[in-house]
């Protein structure tokens, strides 16, 4: 079994003169909840469309679950997909839609019926199962699309902007639902909401101009595995500024916690009063740094 749930290498996709993907390579480990972050037009949706087989790449390869590029004959039921902006048939009911889709995923009638009930309950739509989709609110339709992606326990779930358009309560519930999938299956989601990605994901892929400038475990991307910032309360000890930063070198044999303990002991010995201790940066700061959009930062120096 492949260690990666998803592996893409050298993806290129052109729309006329625009390169939506420009040598995009990424590895999503099995069992991870992976966030795809990037500005509008960076290529996130194009990448997910290529992964789902909706869009053919001009170059590069995709491998899903070690079975090659997406092929419904092999992947239906094993990969759940929530496409962005795909409208639902309005005349059907959620039960009718999910029922047919479950059958297409290879379930028998009884199994499909059970899976539909479970999926609708998971997104709090069980009481709307037999209402026409046209009568559901935008948020309910969005939750229905998430139920469709989670239908039948897929190994890999791909969610393109799953919380967009949801009110805060619905978004929070959906985040809890996604968080509950951690360890049960691989989840790849794209989002503009960096705080959401930071709270949900343990793996991050940054997308910028059709490329992937940075990817890896969240702690690594945010520097939480090697960076500590300590903010001091004035007056500062001689030679110390308000913020004292500790960055472990890659070859430093110490663990971050031990190095932090040593630094704090050193500061206390110097008579410093400690206000805050931060491990790493926020994902937003790292993202803005990487994109060169943070005042006073130079992306090349990171």
């Amino acid at each position, binding site marked *: 079994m492949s260690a990666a749930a998803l592996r893409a290498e050298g993806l290129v996709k052109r729309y006329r003169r625009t390169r939506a993907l420009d040598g995009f390579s990424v590895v999503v480990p099995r069992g991870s909840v992976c966030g795809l972050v990037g500005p509008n037009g960076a290529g996130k949706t194009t990448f997910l469309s290529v992964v789902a087989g909706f869009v053919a790449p001009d170059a590069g390869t995709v491998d899903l679950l070690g079975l090659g590029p997406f092929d419904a004959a092999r992947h239906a039921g094993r990969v759940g997909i929530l496409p962005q902006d*795909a409208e639902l048939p309005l005349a059907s009911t959620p039960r009718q839609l999910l029922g047919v889709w479950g059958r297409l995923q290879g379930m028998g009638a009884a199994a499909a019926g059970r899976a539909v009930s479970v999926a609708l309950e998971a997104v709090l739509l069980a009481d709307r199962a037999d209402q026409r989709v046209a009568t559901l609110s935008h948020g309910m339709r969005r939750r229905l699309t998430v139920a469709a992606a989670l239908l039948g326990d897929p190994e890999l779930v791909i969610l393109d902007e799953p919380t967009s358009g949801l009110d805060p309560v619905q978004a929070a519930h959906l985040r809890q639902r996604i968080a509950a999938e951690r360890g049960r299956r691989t989840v790849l989601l794209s989002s503009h909401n960096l705080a959401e990605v930071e709270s949900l994901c343990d793996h991050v892929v940054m997308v910028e101009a059709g490329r992937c400038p940075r990817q890896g475990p969240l702690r690594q991307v945010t520097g939480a595995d090697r960076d500590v910032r300590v903010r001091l309360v004035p007056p500062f000890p001689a030679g110390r500024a308000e913020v004292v930063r500790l960055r472990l070198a890659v070859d430093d044999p110490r663990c971050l916690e031990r190095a932090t303990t040593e630094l704090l002991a050193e500061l206390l010995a110097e008579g410093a009063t400690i206000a805050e201790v931060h491990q790493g940066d926020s994902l937003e700061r790292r993202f803005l740094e990487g994109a060169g959009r943070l005042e006073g930062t130079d992306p090349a120096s990171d």
Partner: protein
Amino acid sequence: MVADGGAPEPASPAPGLGRALRSCGWIAAYEVGEAARTRLLQLLLVAYAASVALSTWALVRLVAFAERAVAERLGVPTTRRPGTLIEETLRSGSVTEPLRAFLGNGVADQLLDGSSFVALWFGATASVALPALALLSASASISGEVRTRGIRWLLSRATRLEVAAGKLLGQGVLVAVAALLGAAVAFTLSTSLMVVAEPRALAGELLLRAGTSLAFALPFVGLGLGASCWVSGAHTARAIAFGVLFALLWGYARLQDHVGPGGLGRAADGVLLLLPPSLWTDLWGRDPGTLLATAARGGVQGLLFFTLGWARFRGRDL
């Protein structure tokens, strides 16, 4: 069995032809179900039934007018419901013989040998209205879902060929339902407004004409779906489908001038067989062999148009 991470092994369709056929069947059933639930297709079906009803009513009025004129000329009272006189007249030699002399080559025999004029009238109506319905409905099938991206829900569970073939099958079923609906409307109206000596025979005749009109509509299902595979948006697909249809009619008329002995003439004849208008003359008879062969030709023409659309659909970005 437990998958990586402790999740239960998901249900996954078995690969192969059986899976593909099941997927096609489910998509076809979904297509028919959606049509039943969607107002637009309900409207198309109602429009088709209404066109048959209007046509049948017009026939009844025409027969009533003719019989009244004849009765006045002969000075005899008219019947309360029309139908008796025209049925007898059409079966008498005084009408059929001149028709045979005029049409020659057995076409008149095929038309008049046991066929009810009501059924022939219905067949003529259905062979125009049913292809139009097929073209309107099928051309919106895929293109509409491509425009809304709703097709992605299916494509994440079924291959493109399964989706397209399932929709072709579903549209075929829809047109078949419409054909039966039209026959039922024609039967109900004609038996209630006219004198029909043998209602059971008329029902059989109408079913036969529903079948022949369905065979005639098959290429149009393929043409509509083929156009639908090429573009996004139902209106664009319909415009293309009707544009191609008019081009085919024009080409058919031009090619007929070139049919004759010699290689070129035979080639033109062969091409004509691939075009839907060629079915028209062969679908009026009652010989089962001829009807089945013509229906098969209609199916092949439909598949040909579908294949042209599929060639685009299989590789395009959706």
